[in-house]
């Protein structure tokens, strides 16, 4: 367990699982909360969720692998999201993603060996007026150019 997740969040996970014990219909709620606390879903944790909420392990895995929010592998310290919405696309998101991939050495969906960055592309986040957009750890950087994006990424260690 300790290898899978930091000490502080182990307690959080225990709390979340206890909160939903015996409530099969709260499966998604429980997994979302664990994902937010721990940034990924280790197999052992999913097994504990299955046992506590009384749902088959297969169903937990089905939900966890289906929804894009859940990660079955550890994520980097910084989550980099390049918005792939239509307006960002029309305003040059592809070039922005190229630059992010070049700077981080990662393709969308990947995490580097030092766990510094996880790069994601996709879902429109609705800040279309300031697209193309880069979001790092939930902070929005609007009207991005490839050059500006490099500077932004370099500020995250």
């Amino acid at each position, binding site marked *: 367990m300790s290898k899978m997740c930091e000490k502080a969040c182990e307690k959080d996970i225990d709390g979340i699982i206890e909160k939903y014990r015996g409530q*099969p219909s709260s499966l998604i709620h429980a997994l979302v909360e664990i994902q937010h606390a721990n940034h990924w879903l280790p197999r052992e944790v999913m097994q504990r969720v299955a046992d506590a909420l009384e749902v088959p392990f297969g169903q937990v895995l089905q939900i966890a692998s*289906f929804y894009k*929010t859940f990660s079955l592998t550890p994520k980097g310290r910084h989550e980099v999201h390049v918005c792939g919405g*239509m307006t960002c696309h029309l305003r040059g998101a592809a070039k922005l993603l190229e630059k992010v991939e070049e700077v981080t050495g990662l393709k969308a969906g990947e995490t580097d060996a030092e766990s510094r960055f996880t790069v994601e592309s*996709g879902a429109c986040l609705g800040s*279309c*007026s300031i697209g193309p*957009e880069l979001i790092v750890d939930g902070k929005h950087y*609007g009207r991005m150019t490839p050059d500006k994006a490099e500077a932004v990424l370099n500020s995250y260690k």
Partner: protein
Amino acid sequence: MPRFQSAAELEAYRAQILAGRNPAKPCIAVCAGAACDGMDSAAVAAAFVAAAAPLGDKIEVRTTGCHGYCEKGPNVVVTPGDICYFEVQPTDVPEIIAATLKGEVVERLVYKDPNTGAKAVHMHEVPFYKHQTRLLIGDNPKIDPMRIDDYLAVGGYAALVKALSEMTPDQVLDEVKKANLRGRGGGGFPAGSKWETTKNAPEKTKYVIVNGHEGESAAFMDRAMLTGNPHKILEGLIIGAYAIGAQKGFMYTRHDMPLLEKHVRNALAQAKEYGLLGENILGSGFSLEVELHFDVGIFVSGESSALMRSIEGNPPEPRPKYIRTSVSGIWDKPSNLNNVETWANVPQIISKGAEWFTSIGSEKSKGTKLISLSGNVVNSGVVEVPMGTPLRTLVFDIGGGVRDGKTLKAIHFGGAMGGSIPADLIDAPLDFDGMSKLGAPIGAGGLLLMDEDTDMVEVARYLMDFLTKESCGKCVPCREGMKQMLQILTRITEGKGKQGDIERLEDLIQVTGVASLCALGKTSGDPLKSMFRYFKPEYEARIAAASGEPK
């Protein structure tokens, strides 16, 4: 705050709030909508709060939801007078405060016409705002979404009071039917008929649901409403539940917007505290509980039957449509689902009546429509206009035309399952049926401008790529049909198109459209269909060039 036991107690409290407010006292409203937030409006708001603190009671600072003019954020509106300041930075704060206290205007921060240089100080003079009819979103600058009292101060929950104390559930339903309120989520189906189906379904347990998923790319008006004025949607939901006879409501929304979550959670808690939710609402005998649920990052979970599976805790796979969710939805109970904007329309229909509502809009589409204006447009943002407004008004008068002095090539409506029409159809009115006939159904209301440089083949490929990734994979026509279309489109964009590709695509559009289970697959070919209707030569030229034939 004690729970209000009756409508009279709530009205007395409202009178008390209004008596305690001085309309002449200057108030600075800082927009914290999604775009302004991205331009760090939080720093601007913090600067205002710090600067106003030593002034005591002389000035009020309010952090609000989206004002609408996202292009020029961070937005600040000063009342009285609705003075609009744009692109405000923390360094501008002392000057704005000083001018406001003296009743003056900071000229350098007001709107300036990019062509004539003419200034516009007040909201009703700014071109972006003056052509709008802001019935739904107009309250946003007046409301701190964390404070229910702000909503009460603008007349909030008066419609609920009216419905519960003066109307029977049948009368409420009749009013909504007479108003001909059509669903704002995409289909344009009459909300009243849908309510009636759930109301008349034999099961006793019934549910009402707010669909705030808004997965449509480049649509951002629902989150502007839900984040900026959550009580308005909640009020609509409670009234609907009363009419239908539902005991439980669900709000289903995005997981990736922390501010939205905070505001909705807070709104639910405050409504409960005031006795507007829970047991025996305002002493009427009617009870309703509302739960908040989140999507977990997949587009198809906005589809009604998939959304209901998701609320049950199951994977969001749609069901065949011969079982209607209004009869058999969540846990197989009758479940009435409407979009955020549809619910937001309910309170004003009850307050002002169906006759007033039907006086706005076009013959078959009544009321106003929220539009997310973006793409290659000068002024992007959230716009509200009466149904039937010509697209030209949206694109040029409000939107200010195409960016960088370029020419308009196409107007795209309805996101990945919508359609594109050429610039010469710009005089078409904004109308559910009319736009569908043209091949660009308004969907939830995401309007994109595409300029002369837009590659229409690439746009179709991009949209198909998006949908392919979002398919739930349950039914084969959707999963495999879209994949095949994507392969062909990708080939054409790479300059490897072949003769017969267009016919093959047309074939695939038809099969996928007929055989898919839900709207995602059924309408996945719609953008392509509109492309073939209006922009076919572009496709033919690409294919001809690839196969080495003369154009």
